[in-house]
């Protein structure tokens, strides 16, 4: 009995899976569900490319056992856009030149997503603090911070209108 039975909701879709108990949430997303938008790199929660949102909070999916996600809800970068319409964060990343190689970007966007949900109008300094656990080697972070600030503004305007 080393497999665990999992009931996991990913991007609104329910999955019933049976996976080895030591599998991380990252293993399940990438290898079982073949959702490769969530990236893999250091596997020690240092780089943040594997960040997803678990029950509303950003987590390093490499450090979370899949078994601990029984019955929980995961959002990955694939779950952000609505049809062809990108999420305001995604749009801002495109618009502000925040994307270079792009490998950290799914993790970066998910980190930012959970943060903005909690803290809709942050300062630049707070944004830097929030994404400190997600390494980017291309951009020097400046345009990423620009993009997140712009998205926060748009999201809260949307919120006010709604």
């Amino acid at each position: 009995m080393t497999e665990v039975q999992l009931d996991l909701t990913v991007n609104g879709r329910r999955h019933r899976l049976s996976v080895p108990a030591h599998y991380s949430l990252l293993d399940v997303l990438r290898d079982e569900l073949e959702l490769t938008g969530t990236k893999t790199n250091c596997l020690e929660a240092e780089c943040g490319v594997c960040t997803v949102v678990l029950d509303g909070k950003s987590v390093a999916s490499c450090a979370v056992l899949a078994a601990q996600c029984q019955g929980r809800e995961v959002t990955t970068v694939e779950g952000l856009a609505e049809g062809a319409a990108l999420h305001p964060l995604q749009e801002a990343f495109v618009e502000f030149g925040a994307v270079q190689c792009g490998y950290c970007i799914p993790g970066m966007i998910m980190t930012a997503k959970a943060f903005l949900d909690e803290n809709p109008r942050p300062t630049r300094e707070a944004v830097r603090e929030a994404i400190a656990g997600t390494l980017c080697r291309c951009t020097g972070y400046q345009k990423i911070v620009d993009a997140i600030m712009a998205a926060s503004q748009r999201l809260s305007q949307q919120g006010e209108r709604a």
Partner: protein
Amino acid sequence: MKLEFLAPQTLQDAVTMAKARGDAARFIAGGTDLVIQARKSGTWPEAVINLQQIPDLGEIKGSGQNFSLGSLVTHRQIEREGRFAGALEALRESACVIGGHQVRNVATVGGNLCNASPAADMVPILLCLNAEVALAGSEGRRVVPLASFIEGPRKTKRAHDEVMTEIAFSAPAQKFASAFLKGGRRRAMEISIVAMAGVVSVSRDGKLTDVRLAMGAAGPKAIRLTEVEKFLEGKALSKDVLEETGRLAAAAASPIDDVRASASFRRHLAGVYARRVVELSWNRISEVGNDRSAA
């Protein structure tokens, strides 16, 4: 790899499972220490016993003077806890420099203490607050002062079937302030090369009183700097007093050389941070609105 995942729904079940499995089973909370260490070393325990579904372990309770942290309280909860703004700021300061959001959203205070790394950042401030940890095991429940709970690097008084359930502490009765500083190469994502926490009060005649200082990452385990505390008792803050504080703190350090820093630099920083923590807390005391001594 034959890891078994056990998911008890009650504290009693968790303890029973641990008892039945013996040393081969480990509790898992956030997993940020356990999972990464297991993957890196390639050796997993035979079983992990998940604590996350046990009710009531994830709350911060208390107000005024007496608080308890459920062992599953995450570092993010602590850093965002309004009750700790002000006098207990050092709790938030300690929590908010552990990993990134992704780690702090799952990593727990109980895991931090049970993992017993010499660089565990929650330990120094909890030592200052004379925290006591509650353990529940097959032999029943007991409460152990944190200072004696951690015995050395990755060594604690916890029996393998004991779950840490909560961490309780009382804030000083009189007006006090606290501060936490840590040293590392970057401004984030750093394992402390020295960590320093302090709690100080000031008597009516403007002298330091009930000073508590604790230092992490500068020896096999975090310790209270009792020599420094004794020295500071009843003193007014001055340049000389601060200098002696630094000297005594550096002398109390027994650091190692490693890839992060040399022993001598750690010792040097221990002195600097001890001074600064005392000074910072002293300065804060005028700002914090918890003047219980007047009440």
